[in-house]
């Protein structure tokens, strides 16, 4: 974000003055104070009224915390599980056992890379069929032992490539949905960054669905929507607005259960606070759901999804 660079410059300037202040015995505290006030003002201006497109940018921010960051911060004893037992181990999707507030859980998350090197390994967080099959395997393990499941969604989408299609990526997503519909343990899904289409939903059929404040969840990326629907690729900002892909919009539409707030400027500005808020919500939700009998859980999940959709009666043809 270009305006974010201004903030970074200003922050650096303040830091520089502080150093001077301490070393030279010149009193710059008034000047520092003035700049800090200015910084706070700019930050508020920049981040309080974000457009939907700016939220898209923030959801994809290179400094945004990823699944493994949150797992490290909110869980103890993370024990990663690898491999789909069929064809490979997809590093774009991580699974494992962990403890959340002392309780054993299975955690599944899409994982982007920080460096080019890591992104090559993790396919930019775009799982292939073996990733979804690994997730399914881990979730079935959870069911067998009565562990609640937490999924952390952060993907531009399933990996679009020849090898994905050869291994039936659509079928793998469908099988995950079918499995999740019937799992007899609680499932809580949180969109932590990008919730990109079917590749996101494939680990997102859950008893509770939350989004971080600056996460997005959408049937299609704004860029693709611009090309397909507007036939003008520059129209992605309009597409972002039209798709109602932000956490606030989706809560207002009744499609998610809640929004987990982030510090001003996004999760990366104060990771510990964001992680703590996420953990609180997970502990609370799992606590609620763990009290339900497996049959009631599956029945409630069925009812949750059965009613999704907006339509009205057709005008009678006899009129």
């Amino acid at each position, binding site marked *: 974000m270009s305006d974010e660079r201004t903030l970074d410059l200003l922050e650096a300037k303040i830091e520089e003055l502080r150093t001077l202040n301490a070393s030279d015995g010149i009193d710059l505290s008034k000047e520092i104070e003035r700049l800090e006030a200015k910084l706070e003002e700019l930050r508020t201006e920049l981040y309080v009224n974000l457009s939907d497109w700016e939220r898209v940018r923030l959801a994809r921010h290179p400094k945004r915390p990823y699944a493994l960051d949150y797992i490290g911060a909110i869980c103890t004893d993370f024990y990663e599980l690898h491999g789909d037992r069929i064809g490979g181990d997809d590093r774009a999707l991580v699974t494992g056992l962990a403890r959340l507030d002392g309780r054993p859980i299975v955690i599944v998350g899409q994982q982007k890379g920080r460096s080019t090197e890591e992104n090559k390994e993790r396919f930019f967080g775009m799982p292939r069929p073996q990733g979804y099959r690994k997730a399914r395997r881990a979730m079935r393990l959870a069911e067998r032992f009565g562990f609640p499941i937490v999924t952390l969604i952060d993907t531009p*989408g*399933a990996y*679009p*490539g*020849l090898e*994905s*299609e*050869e*291994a*039936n*990526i*659509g*079928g793998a*997503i*469908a*099988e995950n*949905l*079918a499995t999740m*519909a*019937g799992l007899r343990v609680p499932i809580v899904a949180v969109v932590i960054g990008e919730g990109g*289409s*079917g590749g996101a*939903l*494939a680990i*997102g*059929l859950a008893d509770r669905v939350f989004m971080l404040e600056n996460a997005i*969840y*959408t*049937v*299609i990326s704004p860029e*693709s*929507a611009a090309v*397909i*629907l*507007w*036939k003008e690729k520059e129209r992605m900002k309009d*597409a972002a607005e*039209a*798709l*109602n*892909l932000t956490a606030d919009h*989706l809560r207002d*539409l009744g*499609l998610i259960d809640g929004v987990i707030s982030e510090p001003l400027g996004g999760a990366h500005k104060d990771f510990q606070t964001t992680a703590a808020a996420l953990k609180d919500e997970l502990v609370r939700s799992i606590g609620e759901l763990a009290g339900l009998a497996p049959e009631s859980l599956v029945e409630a*999940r*069925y009812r949750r*999804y*059965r009613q*999704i*959709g*907006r*339509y*009205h*009666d*057709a*005008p*009678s*043809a*006899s009129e």
Partner: protein
Amino acid sequence: MPIFKEKDYLRVDLGREPDESLWMKCKACGELVFKRRVRENNNVCPSCGEYFFLTAVERIGLLADDGSFEDVTRPIVADDPLGFADRKPYPERVADAQATTGLEDAILVGRATIGGVAAVIGVMDFRFIGGSMGSVVGEQICHGIETAIDDRCPFVLVASSGGARLQEGLFSLLQMAKTTTVRQRLADAGLPFISVMTYPTSGGVQASIASLGDVIIAERGALIGFAGRRVIQNAMAQELPEHFQSDVFAFEHGAIDRVVGRDGMRDELASLLSFFVEAR
């Protein structure tokens, strides 16, 4: 005998000729062919054998035994929950598609017998906004499955869809979860689901309900896949084989059970369904 039983809200006109001209050019072989001949040939080019689209009504005529189809499609129309407008407001897009197709949305659902076997069938119509699955299509599929459960009979879905109805945003994405969740009820009831994939079965429909058939049959000439060819080429700059996402591609990679020609589809379904009916 008419294919349809009377149903007052169903606005379909079987006799209507959509185009004035009598001839059409086959997009595959380039031959000028007589339209009536094409229609009589189940919309297959009489010159080269290329498959053209079937409307939902034509498809039902092809699969259901004469006079057996009882329409149970719910009389519902899509809302516009996002107030969506791209180059055209969504409600206008829906109204236009309704005017063109005579359907309320991209699917018809009904009871029928197929070669004497009672089943509930859902048939999608690609002409209606690319056969895309929004709230209405999702609801009709669920309603079809629930009708099959009530009737204790199999459910057959003939997919012809580019995927999710983008204009309904996340509502359409979540129809994948909705239809899948309801599909599990059919399995719990011990009833079979036969998925028939035609040209095209892709995106969110392929990645949910259509891929969950107990048996999956592709119509010859089907396109089957998740991400579109152009999307993959743009994103990955990858060379794709010519038969990419074709019926043969899906079959070779184990995504489907069989590939069947249009003419043989009714008999194919009848023989297949008979196994499950006898078993009960």
